[in-house]
């Protein structure tokens, strides 16, 4: 089984901490994900708002590259990239003519043989089975698992978890000793791409998520998406200003939390790169 990883732009930029924690965790479990060579942008939000063909061609090229290099499973840690790749695979599978057209555009063969998995699925399959023996410091904290929009949506295409009240991340966190609280904002919008253009909206929406998590006594918010992380973490000063409060709950990637539990140092899992100080270790 050859596992490839598609990092996308975030994991090489604003979410280097996420990238570091994924690789550190993989190493701790003797997994070596291979970065898909010559990967390109997934198209993210911009492409599918402008040009359908382009929005499919970009992820299709990534998938074709993975196939070319014999990758069986592509781990896509970024929820947005994951969504684009899965949706593309779904569309091309459903419409053979479209597939032929996209193959012409990317000048590559595409069969749809590689499986695309998100970070939770990856943890479920490769980390959880060996987790018990490796946990050194149980993560004894109350956590609010925040799934955001793209990890479980669109449900019809992903067919992953319960769309209105997802549970998979809660289950994963409970395996390292955490208590996942009942959290009302699991899939509410964080403001997403408005981070740049309308920071005020992000402050309002992300603020609601943070406020509810703090109010329910969570010690940390757990995320699996670089966009969610940057809105909840990097935009914290704006959020605090907007709400006129001092929210200081840390926002931690699920891979970072598991990394800490299996004995990796905060530095190894990239915690020092956070804007909101993480006092958990």
């Amino acid at each position, binding site marked *: 089984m050859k596992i490839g990883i598609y990092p996308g732009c975030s994991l090489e930029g604003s979410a280097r901490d996420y990238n570091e924690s994924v690789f550190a965790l993989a190493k701790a479990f003797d997994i070596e994900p291979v970065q898909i060579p010559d990967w390109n942008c997934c198209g993210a939000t911009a492409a599918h708002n402008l040009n359908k063909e382009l929005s499919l061609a970009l992820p299709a090229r990534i998938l074709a590259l993975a196939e070319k290099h014999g990758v069986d499973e592509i781990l896509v840690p970024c929820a947005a990239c994951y969504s684009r790749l899965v949706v593309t695979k779904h569309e091309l599978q459903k419409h053979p003519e479209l597939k032929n057209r996209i193959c012409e555009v990317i000048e590559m063969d595409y069969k749809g043989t590689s499986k695309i998995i998100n970070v939770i699925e990856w943890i479920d399959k490769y980390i959880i089975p060996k987790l018990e023996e490796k946990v050194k410091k149980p993560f004894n904290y109350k956590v609010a698992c925040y799934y955001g929009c793209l990890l479980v949506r669109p449900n019809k295409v992903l067919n992953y978890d319960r769309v*209105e*009240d997802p549970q998979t991340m809660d289950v994963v966190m409970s395996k390292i000793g955490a208590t996942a609280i*009942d959290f009302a904002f699991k899939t509410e919008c964080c403001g997403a791409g408005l981070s740049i253009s309308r920071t005020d909206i992000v402050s309002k929406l992300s603020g609601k998520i943070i406020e509810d998590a703090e*109010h329910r006594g969570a010690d940390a918010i757990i995320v699996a998406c670089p966009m969610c992380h940057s809105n909840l973490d990097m935009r914290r000063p704006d959020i605090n200003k907007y709400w006129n409060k001092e929210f200081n709950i840390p926002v931690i990637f699920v891979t970072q939390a598991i990394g800490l539990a299996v004995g990796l140092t905060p530095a190894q899992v990239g915690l020092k790169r956070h804007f909101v100080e993480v006092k958990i270790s």
Partner: protein
Amino acid sequence: MARIGVFICHCGENISATVDCGKVCEAASKLKHVAYATEYKYMCSDPGQSLVKNAIIEHKLTGVVVSACSPRMHEPTFRKATAEGGLNPFLCEMANLREHCSWVHEKGEATTEKAIDIVRTLVEKVKRNAALQPIRVPVTKAALVIGGGIAGIQAALDIANCGHKVIMVERSPSIGGHMSQLSETFPTLDCSQCILTPRMVEVLQHPNITLYSYAEVEQLDGFIGNFVAKIRKKAKSLDEKACTGCGLCITKCPQKKIPNEFEEGMGFRPAIYVPFPQAVPNRPVIDKANCTYYIKGKCKVCEIVCPTKAIRFDQEDEVIDVEVGAVVVATGFDIKRADFFPEYGYGKLKDVIDGLQFERLASASGPTNGEILRPSDGQKPKNIVFIACAGSRDPAKGIAYCSKICCMYTAKHAMLYKHKVHEGNAHVFYMDIRSAGKNYDEFVRRAIEEDHVNYIRGRVSTVYERDGKLIVKGVDTLLGAQPVEIVADMVVLATAGVANPGAEELAQRLHVSYDSHKFFAEAHPKLKPVETNTAGIFLAGACQNPKDIPDSVSQASGAAVKVAALFSQSELTREPLVAAVNRFGPPLYSTCVGCFMCQPVCPYQAIEREEIKSRDGKVIKSLAKINEGLCQGCGTCVALCRSKSIDLYGYTNEQVYTEVVALLNDY
């Protein structure tokens, strides 16, 4: 020499809009052995039928082809007309020019050509039709009513009052159904129990009704007029004759913490129980799954305290066979529960309840004696939100249909709340208000205008708890899609009405069809709404689709009349379209080789073994023999028979073959 008449119907414009009927008529008249061909706008009307009758006499016809709609629609009509013209009714055939041609094709020459082809095949077939005699079968004048809710009760009483015996089978320990759980009923706000319980008693006391409560129909065999039902009477662990219903066992049972089904889980009951004080029959049953004696082998408190020694721990289920002539299925419905609404916190948040739970809260005999108190802390809710269409009309949830009763009962709930909590605020989120029915819309207007219920047109996206309150987030689509947030103390979901658990298995046991939502299917959506596709089995109430009380009662009476009409005949005639094994004189007797491959494939157990014996009693040959009373003419045995010894009357191999040849040959 065959003399066939062809009658081409325009079906208004249904056929003539796409098929050139004149051309079909002309082509038909030129076919070999066609003595007469004509066309008419509505062949099924009185003048149309007369056309058929008169032509038979005038042209000395030996066969009739009516080229019109599906035989499912009008074959009986034209067979009757044919008989009135003096011909055997089975010498009439239907050429389906509507469903098989005009409705599915565009106007054009090819469509007309196809219509001519269809007519030609049927002309060839009818030449080989045999004059058949209908099969006469006796009628058992007793009806089986499955389900003891208001629909079953109404049907049973109506049939019993016509003087026929009724056997009612109810799954739970008491009859009464969902109606017995309701507090008040719309649109009059009269007490549900007050109008229902006398009818329940009537069922119990009626000399023509035998009630089997805590029982289920396990199997149904036979056919219209002659069904045999296998009924499992579940062990109540009680001698019903000895029991006086004093209730001492119920009060003394030490196991008291079993969620009460009748109270929709909002109260508890002991292991020996009657569902509610007004239950019929008012005799307890022991819930074996929860009884300490059955679990641990010790206790027997009920046996000790019983003054008449009526407890029978060793009682076993009893399976009985009853013979009935007709069946009314009135098994009712359920509402969607549990994990279906994670966005509304249903099942997770204690104060998010469903409509039936609210009924129990509002009921004078309910867990709160009719006071509206929220389940979490017993406080009176000051703000209450009702969410209509929770699941209904939501294709994303897999329920595209309207549950029909929710708009009305939500208005009723809001009204009851306002009548009981004067200072409280009631909010209703709705998609549309569907209040068609006598005095229904007036009722909803009363809730809005007189009781000041706040109706908000829009959907609720989420309900979550915060500091003991429920935050309801929705949208007001009449105020420019403004987001609405209500801090509520209690939320009531009008969850979708769905088929009962086990409805699918029951339908299969009864051989009736059901739809994709597991509701039982009527034979025709407009003209046969109480019949099923299986003759002699009728539907009443919400097992067909969600229905309110007036609709259920009307339909039940309709089903009862169907049963009474059936029982008004001393014997029934059945279509003789059954299979038969060929028979000849000795020494061949039949081409059947007695392999009996046909036996296991027959869905109706109609194939028997017949032995031909010599005078000294020696078996010469074993043959398959088809019981024409049981055979439904499906033809499976015909297709399977290796020696081609079975034929289906009305659809013989020869007839079908001729039809195919007629299609292939160029005329």
